[in-house]
Protein backbone atom coordinates (compact mmCIF):
# COMPACT_ATOMS: atom_id res chain seq x y z
CA UNK A 1 0.00 0.00 0.00
CA UNK A 2 1.36 3.44 -0.95
CA UNK A 3 0.57 6.37 1.29
CA UNK A 4 -0.33 9.69 -0.31
CA UNK A 5 2.07 12.50 0.56
CA UNK A 6 -0.73 14.73 1.84
CA UNK A 7 -2.41 11.98 3.86
CA UNK A 8 -3.00 12.95 7.49
CA UNK A 9 -2.73 10.18 10.03
CA UNK A 10 -4.18 9.89 13.54
CA UNK A 11 -3.14 7.72 16.42
CA UNK A 12 -5.69 5.04 17.27
CA UNK A 13 -6.58 4.13 20.86
CA UNK A 14 -4.26 1.15 20.48
CA UNK A 15 -1.51 3.54 19.38
CA UNK A 16 -2.10 5.77 22.41
CA UNK A 17 -2.01 2.75 24.71
CA UNK A 18 1.27 1.53 23.23
CA UNK A 19 2.81 4.98 23.73
CA UNK A 20 1.74 5.11 27.35
CA UNK A 21 2.81 1.55 28.11
CA UNK A 22 6.49 2.26 27.24
CA UNK A 23 6.69 -1.42 26.36
CA UNK A 24 8.81 -3.10 23.72
CA UNK A 25 5.93 -4.01 21.39
CA UNK A 26 7.30 -1.64 18.76
CA UNK A 27 10.80 -0.52 17.81
CA UNK A 28 12.32 2.79 18.92
CA UNK A 29 12.02 4.11 15.37
CA UNK A 30 8.33 3.13 15.23
CA UNK A 31 7.75 4.78 18.62
CA UNK A 32 9.35 7.99 17.36
CA UNK A 33 7.20 7.94 14.24
CA UNK A 34 4.11 7.26 16.36
CA UNK A 35 4.97 10.24 18.56
CA UNK A 36 5.06 12.68 15.66
CA UNK A 37 1.73 11.56 14.22
CA UNK A 38 -0.56 14.39 15.30
CA UNK A 39 -3.72 14.30 13.19
CA UNK A 40 -2.79 17.59 11.51
CA UNK A 41 0.41 17.19 9.53
CA UNK A 42 0.65 15.32 6.24
CA UNK A 43 3.07 12.44 5.72
CA UNK A 44 5.43 14.39 3.44
CA UNK A 45 5.71 17.20 5.96
CA UNK A 46 6.29 14.72 8.81
CA UNK A 47 9.07 13.03 6.85
CA UNK A 48 10.70 16.42 6.28
CA UNK A 49 10.52 17.77 9.84
CA UNK A 50 10.98 14.59 11.88
CA UNK A 51 14.43 13.80 10.47
CA UNK A 52 15.25 11.58 13.45
CA UNK A 53 12.75 8.97 12.24
CA UNK A 54 14.37 6.60 9.76
CA UNK A 55 12.35 6.01 6.58
CA UNK A 56 9.17 7.75 7.76
CA UNK A 57 6.83 6.49 5.03
CA UNK A 58 7.74 2.84 5.50
CA UNK A 59 7.52 3.19 9.27
CA UNK A 60 4.09 4.79 9.04
CA UNK A 61 2.96 1.96 6.79
CA UNK A 62 4.12 -0.47 9.46
CA UNK A 63 2.19 1.46 12.11
CA UNK A 64 -0.88 1.48 9.87
CA UNK A 65 -0.60 -2.27 9.41
CA UNK A 66 -0.30 -2.71 13.17
CA UNK A 67 -3.44 -0.63 13.67
CA UNK A 68 -1.60 2.00 15.72
CA UNK A 69 -2.46 4.84 13.32
CA UNK A 70 -5.34 5.36 10.95
CA UNK A 71 -6.07 7.76 8.13
CA UNK A 72 -8.73 10.46 8.21
CA UNK A 73 -11.30 8.17 6.60
CA UNK A 74 -11.59 6.23 9.84
CA UNK A 75 -11.32 9.20 12.12
CA UNK A 76 -13.85 7.77 14.56
CA UNK A 77 -10.94 6.11 16.27
CA UNK A 78 -9.22 9.40 17.07
CA UNK A 79 -8.34 9.57 20.74
CA UNK A 80 -6.22 12.67 21.16
CA UNK A 81 -7.44 16.09 22.16
CA UNK A 82 -5.98 19.22 20.50
CA UNK A 83 -4.03 19.84 23.71
CA UNK A 84 -2.53 16.37 23.50
CA UNK A 85 -1.56 16.94 19.85
CA UNK A 86 0.09 20.25 20.78
CA UNK A 87 1.99 18.52 23.55
CA UNK A 88 3.15 15.83 21.15
CA UNK A 89 4.46 18.49 18.79
CA UNK A 90 6.30 20.15 21.68
CA UNK A 91 7.92 16.82 22.45
CA UNK A 92 9.01 16.49 18.83
CA UNK A 93 10.52 19.99 18.94
CA UNK A 94 12.28 19.25 22.23
CA UNK A 95 13.70 16.06 20.74
CA UNK A 96 14.93 18.04 17.72
CA UNK A 97 16.48 20.63 20.07
CA UNK A 98 18.27 17.90 22.01
CA UNK A 99 19.58 16.39 18.79
CA UNK A 100 20.77 19.79 17.57
CA UNK A 101 22.61 20.66 20.79
CA UNK A 102 23.89 17.27 21.88
CA UNK A 103 24.29 15.22 18.70
CA UNK A 104 24.72 11.50 19.34
CA UNK A 105 24.58 11.99 23.10
CA UNK A 106 20.95 13.12 22.85
CA UNK A 107 19.42 9.62 22.92
CA UNK A 108 18.81 9.47 26.69
CA UNK A 109 17.37 12.98 26.68
CA UNK A 110 15.01 12.20 23.78
CA UNK A 111 13.87 9.04 25.59
CA UNK A 112 13.06 11.05 28.72
CA UNK A 113 11.12 13.62 26.68
CA UNK A 114 9.23 10.92 24.79
CA UNK A 115 8.24 9.19 28.01
CA UNK A 116 6.93 12.37 29.65
CA UNK A 117 3.22 12.84 30.19
CA UNK A 118 1.36 15.07 27.74
CA UNK A 119 0.91 18.05 30.05
CA UNK A 120 2.87 21.33 30.07
CA UNK A 121 3.70 20.84 33.77
CA UNK A 122 5.09 17.36 33.16
CA UNK A 123 7.12 18.61 30.21
CA UNK A 124 8.55 21.46 32.28
CA UNK A 125 9.53 18.98 35.00
CA UNK A 126 11.15 16.67 32.46
CA UNK A 127 12.99 19.65 31.01
CA UNK A 128 14.48 20.48 34.43
CA UNK A 129 15.45 16.83 34.90
CA UNK A 130 17.05 16.72 31.46
CA UNK A 131 19.04 19.87 32.26
CA UNK A 132 20.52 18.15 35.31
CA UNK A 133 21.27 14.99 33.37
CA UNK A 134 22.99 17.01 30.62
CA UNK A 135 25.01 19.03 33.14
CA UNK A 136 26.16 15.89 34.98
CA UNK A 137 26.86 13.51 32.12
CA UNK A 138 26.98 15.27 28.74
CA UNK A 139 27.99 18.92 28.76
CA UNK A 140 27.94 21.55 31.50
CA UNK A 141 27.85 24.31 28.89
CA UNK A 142 24.88 22.94 26.93
CA UNK A 143 22.69 22.30 29.99
CA UNK A 144 21.55 25.88 30.49
CA UNK A 145 21.14 26.47 26.74
CA UNK A 146 18.91 23.38 26.51
CA UNK A 147 16.78 24.54 29.45
CA UNK A 148 16.37 28.10 28.18
CA UNK A 149 15.51 27.09 24.62
CA UNK A 150 13.27 24.27 25.89
CA UNK A 151 11.33 26.67 28.12
CA UNK A 152 10.88 28.98 25.12
CA UNK A 153 9.38 26.06 23.21
CA UNK A 154 6.97 25.54 26.10
CA UNK A 155 6.09 29.23 25.94
CA UNK A 156 7.63 30.03 29.34
Amino acid at each position, binding site marked *: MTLRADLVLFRTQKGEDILLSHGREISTNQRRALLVVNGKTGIAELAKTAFWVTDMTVTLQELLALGLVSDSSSASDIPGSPASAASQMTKVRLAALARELLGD*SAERIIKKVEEAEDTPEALEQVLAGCK*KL*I*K*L*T*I*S*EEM*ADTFLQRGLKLLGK
Partner: protein
Amino acid sequence: MNLDITTLLNLFAILIMFYCLYLVLSLKSSIPGGMIGKRWNFLTMLVVLFSIGYLATPFFDRIPAETLRLVVSAIFVFGAIYVVVTVRLIYNIIRELTE
Protein backbone atom coordinates in the same frame (compact mmCIF):
# COMPACT_ATOMS: atom_id res chain seq x y z
CA MET B 1 55.71 -19.25 45.40
CA ASN B 2 55.24 -18.68 49.11
CA LEU B 3 51.47 -18.18 49.64
CA ASP B 4 51.48 -16.37 52.99
CA ILE B 5 48.80 -14.00 54.25
CA THR B 6 50.53 -10.96 52.73
CA THR B 7 50.58 -12.51 49.25
CA LEU B 8 46.91 -13.50 49.57
CA LEU B 9 45.98 -9.97 50.61
CA ASN B 10 47.97 -8.58 47.69
CA LEU B 11 46.20 -10.90 45.25
CA PHE B 12 42.83 -9.93 46.70
CA ALA B 13 43.70 -6.23 46.34
CA ILE B 14 44.80 -6.75 42.72
CA LEU B 15 41.52 -8.53 41.91
CA ILE B 16 39.47 -5.72 43.46
CA MET B 17 41.47 -3.08 41.62
CA PHE B 18 40.97 -4.85 38.28
CA TYR B 19 37.26 -5.10 38.95
CA CYS B 20 37.33 -1.35 39.62
CA LEU B 21 39.21 -0.82 36.35
CA TYR B 22 36.57 -2.84 34.49
CA LEU B 23 33.81 -0.70 36.05
CA VAL B 24 35.37 2.68 35.24
CA LEU B 25 36.14 1.67 31.66
CA SER B 26 32.71 0.16 30.97
CA LEU B 27 30.94 3.23 32.37
CA LYS B 28 33.08 5.66 30.42
CA SER B 29 31.01 5.44 27.22
CA SER B 30 27.85 6.37 29.15
CA ILE B 31 29.43 9.56 30.45
CA PRO B 32 30.76 11.46 27.44
CA GLY B 33 31.19 14.73 29.31
CA GLY B 34 29.60 17.04 31.82
CA MET B 35 30.54 17.38 35.47
CA ILE B 36 30.92 13.61 35.97
CA GLY B 37 32.56 12.97 32.59
CA LYS B 38 35.41 15.39 33.29
CA ARG B 39 36.23 13.82 36.69
CA TRP B 40 35.69 10.32 35.34
CA ASN B 41 38.68 10.63 33.00
CA PHE B 42 40.88 11.63 35.93
CA LEU B 43 39.51 8.80 38.10
CA THR B 44 40.13 6.33 35.25
CA MET B 45 43.73 7.50 35.02
CA LEU B 46 44.19 7.02 38.77
CA VAL B 47 42.64 3.53 38.67
CA VAL B 48 45.01 2.57 35.83
CA LEU B 49 47.92 3.90 37.91
CA PHE B 50 46.78 1.95 40.99
CA SER B 51 46.28 -1.22 38.94
CA ILE B 52 49.88 -1.01 37.74
CA GLY B 53 51.08 -0.22 41.26
CA TYR B 54 49.12 -3.10 42.79
CA LEU B 55 50.48 -5.49 40.17
CA ALA B 56 53.97 -4.57 41.37
CA THR B 57 53.26 -5.35 45.05
CA PRO B 58 54.41 -9.02 44.89
CA PHE B 59 57.85 -7.72 43.87
CA PHE B 60 58.16 -5.13 46.62
CA ASP B 61 60.56 -7.35 48.61
CA ARG B 62 63.05 -7.10 45.74
CA ILE B 63 63.36 -3.33 45.66
CA PRO B 64 65.59 -1.26 47.98
CA ALA B 65 64.03 0.01 51.21
CA GLU B 66 64.52 3.66 50.27
CA THR B 67 62.73 3.22 46.91
CA LEU B 68 59.99 1.21 48.60
CA ARG B 69 59.31 4.05 51.06
CA LEU B 70 59.00 6.44 48.13
CA VAL B 71 56.60 4.11 46.29
CA VAL B 72 54.43 3.67 49.39
CA SER B 73 54.36 7.44 49.94
CA ALA B 74 53.32 7.95 46.31
CA ILE B 75 50.52 5.39 46.74
CA PHE B 76 49.31 7.26 49.84
CA VAL B 77 49.34 10.61 47.99
CA PHE B 78 47.48 9.30 44.95
CA GLY B 79 45.08 7.41 47.23
CA ALA B 80 44.29 10.64 49.05
CA ILE B 81 43.77 12.48 45.73
CA TYR B 82 41.45 9.68 44.59
CA VAL B 83 39.36 9.98 47.73
CA VAL B 84 39.15 13.78 47.45
CA VAL B 85 38.08 13.65 43.80
CA THR B 86 35.45 10.98 44.54
CA VAL B 87 34.01 12.78 47.57
CA ARG B 88 33.91 16.11 45.73
CA LEU B 89 32.19 14.43 42.79
CA ILE B 90 29.53 12.92 45.04
CA TYR B 91 29.15 16.28 46.80
CA ASN B 92 28.62 18.07 43.47
CA ILE B 93 26.16 15.46 42.21
CA ILE B 94 24.07 15.70 45.38
CA ARG B 95 24.16 19.51 45.26
CA GLU B 96 23.07 19.48 41.61
CA LEU B 97 20.26 17.01 42.23
CA THR B 98 18.92 18.86 45.25
CA GLU B 99 19.03 22.33 43.69
